[in-house]
């Protein structure tokens, strides 16, 4: 019998193979580009153009928005497409656990989110004088946020549907309101008390806070609560995603 550690290594190798395949196959699909790249950038532009604030101060918002939209878009593109052409069944019939399949797909979202959100950091540093003052916090922000938001996308992808649109619609129903309560357009410090409480509950708030801190700003809630809340959301999204997909398999 296979030992526990060799079993885990095997599951990790297969999860990575799934992530690589998804990256090759789905990163350049129109829905990935539309919802993962164009959407956050155009949202940012539409709200930042004409504002008096220096662009360098807006860079953390763009970083957070791209992390949020890019990471959470891959699962809702990949899984319905694979349901439609029955390639998702190929994973279910393979000797690998459902958790590893979903972790592989989550990883594809993580790498997409990080890859896209690096662009505004590089552009900000090169053209607008942004500076990364705490690389450690930036790494935590990007890795934790992309993992959490990618897992959120995977969780939503458990909604039965065979086109990305069938999952994107309910996902956007959640994603867009989160923009308004997370300090994207109005800093948390300027919100009324009830707004700050609501903001505390949004995972996106903590991504923005961490990005601001890493790029020389301040956090309203503090680093430890930011990281702890993001970790909690990541765990919940991963757990619920696996649970919902397992329930789907029972209904199949």
């Amino acid at each position, binding site marked *: 019998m296979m030992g526990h550690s060799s079993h885990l290594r095997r599951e990790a190798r297969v999860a990575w193979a799934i992530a690589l395949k998804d990256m090759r196959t789905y990163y350049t699909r129109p829905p990935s580009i539309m919802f993962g790249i164009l959407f956050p950038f155009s949202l940012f532009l539409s709200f930042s153009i004409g504002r008096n604030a220096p662009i360098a101060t807006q860079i953390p918002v763009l970083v957070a928005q791209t992390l949020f939209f890019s990471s959470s878009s891959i699962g809702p593109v990949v899984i319905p497409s694979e349901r439609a052409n029955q*390639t998702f069944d190929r994973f279910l019939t393979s000797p690998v656990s459902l958790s590893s399949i979903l972790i592989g797909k989550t990883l594809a979202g993580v790498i997409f989110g990080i890859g896209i959100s690096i662009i505004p950091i590089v552009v900000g540093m090169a053209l607008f004088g942004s500076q990364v003052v705490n690389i450690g916090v930036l790494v935590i922000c990007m890795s934790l946020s992309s993992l959490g938001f990618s897992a959120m996308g995977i969780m939503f992808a458990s909604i039965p549907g065979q086109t990305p649109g069938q999952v994107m619609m309910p996902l956007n129903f959640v994603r867009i309101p989160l923009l308004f309560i997370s300090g994207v357009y109005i800093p948390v410090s300027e919100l009324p008390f009830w707004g700050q409480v609501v903001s505390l509950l949004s995972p996106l708030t903590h991504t923005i806070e961490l990005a601001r801190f890493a790029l020389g700003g301040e956090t309203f809630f503090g680093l430890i609560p930011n990281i702890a809340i993001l970790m909690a959301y990541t765990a919940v999204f991963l757990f619920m995603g696996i649970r919902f997909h397992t329930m789907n398999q029972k209904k199949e």
Partner: protein
Amino acid sequence: MGTEVLVKDSQIIDAIGVSDLTKKYGDLVAVDHVNFNVKKGEVFGFLGPNGAGKTTTIRMLTGVSTPTEGTASIMGFDIRHQAIEAKEQMGIVPDISNVYNELSAWDNLIFTGRLYDMPKSFRDSRAEELLKMFGLYERRKEKVEGYSRGMKRRICIAMALMNRSSILFLDEPTSGLDVQSVLIIRDLIRKLNQQGLTIFITTHNIEEASQMCDRVAIINHGKIAAIDTPERLKRTVESLQSVEVAFETAPSDASRELQTIPKVNEVVKEGDKFRLITNPTDVLASIFNYVQVRNLKLITVNTVGPSLEDVFVKLTGIRPATEAKETTSQGRGGQGAGQRRGVQR
């Protein structure tokens, strides 16, 4: 330890064991306490009309769907509690060729090898071997989206063979393919079986099942109606013997006139032929007499035994609506050509 495994493996007679397997969707029972075994090295056919529960059964056996009740084992491994080990034993070809169209044939096979955690050297050599076996090696770098349906089917089967599985599940493997692809795939299935692979095949093509399968199970309304070898099943409906005749120019009222021949139970018009349901020895003389009296020219006379299709029709009650209009009497549901023995003039 190694010896124990060998002894255990040799003791496994059944490649697939199914016990009380059930699938319910709310109040609908799609598969209802199904029991059967498939022996190692057997070609086992799973027949049934649309919606009978064939695909649901295959989906439960291959891990896509979770059974509501019952158990099943693949090479001795329980599909629920030893799912990973069970899945390592099988290759699956679903009814739709679920290949990655964006990837090349080579990358499809390599990715499948990675799903089975095959070492790189093994998966490279196996992919090359399979692509050569399926005549696709020269086009291995092309994206699969440019392949024909038959080529995609072949890639799909190659992917199912990548892990050198013990059991191959094929869900309607030749459905919708051109004749050449059908013949290639049938030949391949025979060769794979000769190499020791156990084959579990669902098909609508009853003649195909009759030709290829060692045993068949007929499923209807989620329940197994019969399991046996095709020949034994045919013997259960010996009453469905018939004579098939074709004339150079058939009289317009041939069906009605042939029905008047003594001991003919029924006449079914099948294209340019007439099938007389009867014991052939009782009526051949009368048929030749009829031909002489009417001054007709016979093209074909075949004595036809019951076909697997006749068994299928009898057990499932499937009867095409058009057939009822073409028969001159009621009471039989045969729709196929049966097993012909006879002469063609």
